[in-house]
């Protein structure tokens, strides 16, 4: 498995330190602008289209009598905040995951997060937990326990390597997916609730959900940024990283903790949203290059913008119905991802 790192050009070969890349800062600003635009869209567009002025008033200067106030403050604002949080989380988690496994097709699901959360949700439903705010804790606990188990197995006696991490993740995922499915076969009522969770959506989540996951995502983002310099060193290989004075195991544990917090919280809140963590780092890497100190924040912002836009599209394309965010992301994101893959120059191996 070769790192998904593109050659940075002449500076490396000549030994001259790489010059500051001015367009990275511009990329960060542009992405932040895109997120702001997506937030406005998410607040304004829907079954009832609102103009930005009405949205502005509803958010900052609420008039209880105006119909826009109720729509924005009770329906769209919680949904937008949730989309913002999970988008940031999934984007950053994807970049971290691909960096740590040195595998360009790694996404947060690889640690068993989706499988563990799914199993826990089904168990929660069977125990009689009927509301999303209730089984969010099951999902989070499931994601947490599974990824800790996967990481522990992969690092048994000798520290995790990219391959053992991915193999352990896949093995546990397959096992848990089978448990989930066999519980669902036996119980149509559980299936009925579960199928709406597993499709991955922002709709029907009230403000409480966002409030529940926000602290975990904030902590995860902080850890991700702290982990970024070490990740740059690890990209050179574990031996080189060690020679450079990195504490490899500590860096791995920190990274996995961040991924678990970010992806676990996002999955718990919205259900598995598969595509985002996979595609966003590839997009961001084109803007920033391989430096994780830039890549992680840019991935987070791109994730948030993309998730919100996908959610808005889902409200518009099949109006008056609604297409779940996870489905929109797959349908619109996959062709884009395939185009990226086809454009890639040179032979890159796994």
């Amino acid at each position: 498995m070769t790192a998904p790192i593109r050659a940075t050009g002449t500076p490396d070969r000549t030994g001259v330190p790489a010059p500051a890349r001015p367009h990275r800062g511009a990329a960060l600003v542009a992405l932040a602008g895109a997120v702001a635009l997506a937030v406005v869209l998410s607040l304004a567009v829907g079954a009832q289209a609102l103009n930005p002025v009405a949205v502005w008033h509803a958010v900052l200067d609420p008039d209880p009598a105006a119909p826009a106030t109720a729509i924005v403050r009770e329906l769209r604002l919680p949904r937008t905040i949730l989309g913002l949080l999970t988008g940031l989380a999934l984007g950053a988690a994807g970049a971290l995951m691909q960096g740590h496994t040195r595998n360009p097709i790694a996404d947060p699901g690889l640690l068993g997060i989706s499988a563990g959360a799914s199993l826990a949700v089904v168990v929660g439903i069977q125990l009689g937990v009927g509301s999303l705010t209730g089984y969010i804790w099951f999902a989070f606990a499931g994601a947490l326990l599974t990824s800790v188990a996967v990481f522990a197995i992969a690092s048994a006696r000798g520290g995790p390597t990219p391959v053992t991490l991915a193999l352990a993740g896949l093995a546990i995922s397959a096992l848990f997916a089978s448990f989930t499915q066999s519980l669902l076969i036996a119980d149509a009522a559980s299936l009925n609730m579960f199928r709406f969770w597993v499709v991955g959506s922002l709709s029907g989540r009230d403000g409480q959900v966002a409030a529940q996951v926000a602290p975990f995502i904030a902590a995860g983002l902080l850890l991700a940024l702290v982990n970024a310099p070490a990740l740059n060193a690890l990209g050179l290989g574990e031996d080189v990283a060690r020679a450079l004075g990195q504490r490899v195991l500590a860096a791995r544990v920190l990274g996995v903790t961040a991924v678990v917090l970010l992806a676990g919280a996002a999955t718990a809140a919205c259900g598995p949203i598969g595509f985002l963590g996979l595609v966003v780092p590839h997009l961001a890497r084109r803007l920033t290059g391989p430096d994780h100190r830039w890549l992680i924040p840019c991935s987070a912002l791109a994730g948030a913008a993309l998730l919100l836009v996908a959610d808005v599209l889902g409200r518009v394309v099949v109006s008056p119905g609604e297409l779940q965010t996870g489905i929109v992301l797959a349908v619109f994101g996959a062709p884009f991802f395939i185009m990226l893959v086809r454009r890639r120059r040179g032979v890159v191996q796994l």
Partner: protein
Amino acid sequence: MTALTTHRVVRFGRFCGTVSGRSLAVGTVGLLGTAAVTVLSISRGSFTIAPADVLRTLLGHGTAAQDLVVLDLRLPRILAALLVGAALAVSGALTQTFARNPLATPDVLGVTNGASLGAVAVIVLAGPAVRTVPLAALAGGLSAAALVYLLAWRRGVDGFRLVLVGIGVGEVLTAGVSWLLVRAEIVDAARATIWLNGSVASAGWEQIRPLALALAALLPLAVATSFTLRAMQFDDDVVRSLGVRLQAARLAVVLTAVALAAAAVAAAGPIEFVAFVVPQIALRLCGGSRPPLVVSAILGALLVTAADLAARVALPQRELPVGLITAMIGTPYLLWLLVRANRRTSA
């Protein structure tokens, strides 16, 4: 183990390769185990038949009652398990070698997801039309694989691009399945979920015959391509300089893997774990640098028949999906291998 790692040269026309003593030993033990599990599995059930009587019946000397239970009721199911296991394992071994990646399975070629979308679409949209489900699965699997291959084609296909494109296409197909399940009546969603679990419980001769034909045609092809696969582990330039026609060889390998997986999934639904874990187990048991094909086939058949037996014996009242059991057997074993391999490299 060093005493067993003698290699014998095998020649087959213009193809030439080596077989290690260790692979032979593993293969033989695997075959014996498969035979034992098959006989045991036929003998167990609500109407128990002694293993000796099972053998007698299989050889054509049973009573009418034994003929009914063994040949008409239990044999199709066991045969389906044997064939599905072998087909999935070989498909997985081919894919993993082709992509030079232990994580690649036929799933990343789009086969499983395409078959699932085809089958679920028929179940949800067309109502109870049992006969067309395997056909829809086959059509879905093959067309998804064709789409992946075409999208990955750019002056040739390399393994990495194929895997990435396959994952992209797979995400869309999975989203399609989720969407159909959300839209479906709960009864149809439940039926679709049963299919999505993979099962050989209802297999009859109409599922087994095409699968057996596919295996009979494709297994020799897979073994023939394995001589080329040996070269494919190297860099593309090295492979070409060894005189291999790279794109033709790749197309043959991918076609074989796809056809095997599609035939298996059409017959039994997705039993995903087998293609992923069996080649890795076979590789670690036999040594070497890539999953062995024949041993993978044997171990795949063994795993699925044993899992099917366990599913029937463990909870006779409630049919467990065979995929659950394959996962329960395969996961701990794979994890143990991982831990052991780690220990060896770190020591």
